[in-house]
């Protein structure tokens, strides 16, 4: 029995325990304990993240001549720890008052708990896969587990988008299956290392097909362009903490497999040899990534529902991850990998703040909120930290990973990709400001006068996550050894790091200093503000006037709708829904053919057709037999 076996056993027992006890109140308290236990099991294996040996599971399955086994590499461990922490935070979040309210509103709380543990179970299974078959099985499990979580929401839209998701996911699974079959048919083996060996033996067209099939499969999960349409709505409609969990980590399983398969076994050389002149697979993927940062981000800018807005950003941030890893150098890939953790931490925190606001006010419509900072200051703080992380500004962790990606683009001389990445970041700043402004700043609505801060069961995970956001931004060196082990295990150049950041000739980064200076600046600013000036007088927000009129609470003057009219004037015409159009046209093509076949089946006289066939066959036979005789 290895530590990995213990991990699997604990996860499996948790699955059984939660599914058995899901309708009892005890599950509230039990679930966080179980996730904590899983976390301990993972921490016991942490040596793998510091350059230690790969953990092999002693269990292996011989099914139908296929050998399936499981292992935990640094890569698996890195994604697993993010998954489990996200699950733990979500479980704590829903264990108290949120869960009570959810039950009272008729939600199936037990199923939500079950869906969460099923997700964790399937993700651990996927992350632990040791060959292509176990990878495929884990992959399918993850898809269906997400589906289970998504369908829990009672709204019609949620169910519809869940079904849409499962169709997308199935398409991806089928693409993955073909790719696996292509590999198997060469050497009759499903080991991971076959990917690389088979790839070198293949013809160029097969190589291209293989890379595209793998990429399509993984891109669908990750919601990369042009497969981004399913994700945002499906995640946004998932109930509360479920959305936080899915938004944090679920679609990153696509990133895991991209690193595992495309980066590790096909590699830069493999991608570069596919293409003509300066356009090769690497550039193609890099541009897919760049467009994924831009387009979903600007779609997010248009949303007026907080959860949708965040979910669309989740799609967009996936682009940074791919953009970083596809550069294949030490800093870029470190940035891409690190962004997975960073994104998970602030995205989960942000989703939780929105859910917290919904818990108190019942809505996440940005046009119906405002001014809540005085009522829910801690939630505001979490959201502030979260949006600084999401926008990638110092001193939060999002800045570090994005800095690494930028630096890599700079080193590799990619100005257009660089601008694309910056365009994404700026769009994010605009959009997250709108989020925090419309929720917490501005006018407080009359009906929200009595709103209070959310209870501690919800605050603790939110605050915990924001501490992670800050600490890993302040001392990225806590995470960077893990990243370095991952890079080493998948054969990428390894990043030189220290506690504060990275060492790099011609311009490194030391976040301890950078954050320190920033806080020094804030300190000086505060000194100037509080000690140099006269005393300020706090006034109520209604002690205010605009345009020569006093503003009162019965007049709504919160500036929220169409927040950036100038920008929208200019770029509004670009929102044409081309991808929606594409999706619809595919559906139209399928229905065209299905009507065609339906008409065939409707043919009233198949008997006549058969008889004509018989006569023709007889005639041909007569000729043939005549000659034969």
């Amino acid at each position, binding site marked *: 029995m290895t530590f990995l076996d213990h991990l699997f056993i604990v996860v499996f027992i948790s699955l059984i325990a939660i599914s058995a006890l899901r309708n009892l109140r005890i599950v509230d308290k039990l679930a966080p304990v179980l996730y904590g236990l899983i976390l301990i099991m993972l921490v016991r294996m942490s040596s793998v993240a510091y350059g230690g040996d790969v953990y092999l599971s002693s269990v292996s399955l*011989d099914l139908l001549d296929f050998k399936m086994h499981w292992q935990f590499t640094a890569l698996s461990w890195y994604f697993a720890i993010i998954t489990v922490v996200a699950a733990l935070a979500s479980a704590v979040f829903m264990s108290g008052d949120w869960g009570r309210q959810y039950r009272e509103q008729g939600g199936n709380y037990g199923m939500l708990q079950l869906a969460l543990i099923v997700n964790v179970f399937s993700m651990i299974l996927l992350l632990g896969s040791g060959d292509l078959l176990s990878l495929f*099985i884990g992959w399918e*499990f993850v898809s269906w587990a997400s589906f289970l979580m998504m369908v829990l929401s009672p709204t019609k839209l949620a*169910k519809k988008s869940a*079904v849409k998701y499962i169709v997308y996911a*199935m398409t991806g699974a089928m693409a993955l299956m073909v790719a696996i079959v292509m590999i198997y048919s060469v050497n009759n083996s499903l080991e991971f290392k076959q990917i690389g060996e088979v790839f070198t033996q293949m013809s160029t067209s097969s190589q291209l097909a293989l890379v595209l099939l793998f990429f399509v499969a993984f891109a669908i999960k990750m919601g990369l362009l042009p497969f981004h349409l399913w994700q945002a709505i499906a995640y946004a409609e998932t109930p509360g903490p479920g959305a936080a969990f899915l938004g944090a980590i679920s679609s990153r399983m696509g990133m895991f497999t991209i690193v595992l398969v495309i980066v590790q076994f096909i590699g830069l050389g493999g991608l570069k040899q596919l293409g003509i002149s300066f356009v090769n697979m690497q550039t193609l993927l890099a541009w897919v990534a760049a467009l994924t940062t831009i387009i979903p981000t600007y779609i997010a800018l248009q949303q007026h529902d907080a959860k949708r807005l965040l979910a669309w950003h989740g799609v967009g941030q996936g682009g940074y991850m791919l953009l970083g890893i596809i550069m294949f150098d030490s800093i870029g890939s470190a940035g891409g990998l690190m962004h997975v953790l960073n994104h998970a931490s602030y995205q989960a925190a942000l989703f939780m703040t929105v859910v917290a606001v919904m818990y108190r006010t019942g809505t996440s419509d940005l046009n119906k909120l405002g001014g809540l900072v005085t009522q829910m200051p801690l939630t505001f703080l979490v959201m502030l930290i979260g949006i600084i992380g999401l926008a990638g500004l110092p001193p939060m962790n999002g800045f570090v990973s994005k800095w690494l990606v930028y630096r890599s683009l700079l080193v590799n001389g990619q100005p257009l990709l660089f601008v694309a990445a910056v365009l994404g970041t700026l769009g994010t700043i605009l959009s997250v400001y709108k989020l925090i402004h419309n929720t917490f700043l501005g006018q407080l609505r009359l009906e929200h006068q009595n709103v209070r801060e959310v209870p501690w069961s919800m605050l603790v995970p939110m605050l915990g996550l924001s501490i992670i956001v800050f600490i890993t931004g302040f001392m990225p060196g806590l995470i960077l050894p893990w990243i370095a082990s991952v890079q080493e295990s998948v054969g990428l150049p390894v990043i030189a790091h220290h506690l504060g950041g990275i060492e790099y000739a011609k311009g490194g980064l030391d976040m301890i200093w950078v954050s320190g200076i920033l806080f020094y600046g804030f300190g000086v600013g505060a000194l100037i503000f509080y000690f140099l000036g006269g005393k300020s007088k706090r006034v109520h927000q209604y002690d205010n006037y605009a345009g020569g009129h006093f503003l009162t609470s019965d007049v709504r003057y919160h500036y929220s709708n169409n927040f950036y009219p100038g920008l929208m004037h200019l770029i509004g015409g670009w929102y044409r829904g081309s991808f929606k159009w594409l999706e619809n046209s595919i559906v139209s093509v399928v*229905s065209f053919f299905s009507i065609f076949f339906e008409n065939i089946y409707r043919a009233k006289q198949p008997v006549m057709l058969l008889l004509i066939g*018989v006569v023709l066959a007889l005639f041909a*036979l007569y000729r*043939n037999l005549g000659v034969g005789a």
Partner: protein
Amino acid sequence: MNSLVLLVVLPLFAAFIIPVVAKFSPKLSLFTGPVVLCINLLLIMSAWIKVGSGSEAIFLGGFLPPVGIVFYIDHFSLLFSGLIAGMVLIVWPWDAKESRLYSLYMLLSAASFGLVLSADLFNLYVFYELLAVATYGIIAASPISKVPNSSATAASLRYLFISSAGSVMLLLGIAIIYTLTGTLNIAHLATMTTSLDGFAGLSAFALIAIGAGVKAEMFPVNSWVAEVYGTIPRQLSALLAGLVSKLAVILIIRMLLMVFQQQAAFDLLLVVGMLGVISGEMVAWRAKDMIRMLSFSSIAQLGLIFIAFSIAGSKGLWIGMALMLHHLLVKGGLFLMADRFAGHMGKLKGLAKHSPMAAAVFLVFVLSLLGVPPFPGFWIKLLLILNLAEQGGGLYHVAIATILLATVIETAYIFKFVRILYQKADADSTPINKNYSSSYTFAKLFALILLVSMLFVSPISNHLKDIANHSASPHIYINKILPTKQLGDRS
């Protein structure tokens, strides 16, 4: 071993005496059929053990092959005989008022057993026709609950037309073979495949395939499927879709494996299989009620089975057999469930709330149908695709693409349906038929078998592989039936 002849004789005899018995005691006539089937099951089991991993030939009527009648018995035929007995027992019309129906079911069983066991073309044709007649009769005689009687009659009539056209083609194909070779014994034919090479032989195979394909829901001749399944009782749909279609498939593959081992024949099956898969799934995608959806999905599944059989040799039989058994369980189960779910899909809203168990059973079936791990359907699909890829050749790659595309479409429509099940009930939704019959219990049983088989994927697969290896070999077949003919003769 000769006792196995009773498999055919007993039901046939029962079919004739039931009307007479019914005159005296209706109760007795009701139980005659099940008793006969149970006896048959016992016979099959004892034969299964006796045959072991080998096979037996039974010569009837005092003549030796190639002239005499031969039954060929191996695990393959015994497996399907067992399934016939079990399936007919499950759908036995307990609540029928007329003894006529019992007779017809007995006739159907007798024909089915004969079809599985016979080793010469003439007998195969006879049993096939008998099966067809029994089916028409059952369709026409069955009590119709939901639809006006006239449409059932019309469907039955149209089925009769197309089916008899198919029979004509089958007969024509047999006639051509006889013209070319002068024999109808399959083993004998297997020794002289060379005279069946070329266009004439191939067209004979095509005629047989399409002729039998009418029952096997093969692509161009399956327009009856939705109509007939839509009007007849669900148990009967389960029987037709689950079992009778497989028997026709068995006829086709017997010919394919023993006599027509040519690439052109494989390609023919591959193409009709592909067309069946894609057309079936696409039409099912537009279906608005459950029976229609299941009917077209059944067409697609049969297409998948044909694709599997287009893989040469025992592998094709192995995978095809697994697919057939899986489809029998899944589609049989789904049709049995449909007894409770009939009508327009929109009316089924809220079913999951009303009956979570039914929804769960339904999910188990469809997930396996889609090939989601760890359900058995996944392994079968994986094996199918891996083996198709091994075949090489463009057409096989097109087949892989077709299967996977079809799976995506299948997911889309099935989950559109699942979504309806899990929606809130509204004014439109009809309460589910509460006084459901035993069929739902059997559906649950099927789901249970499916779940249990999940745990025994490897042994089951190995067993099927052994059976396939044995049954797909023309050498063994010839040796058993025509011991005098040696392998050398098979030039």
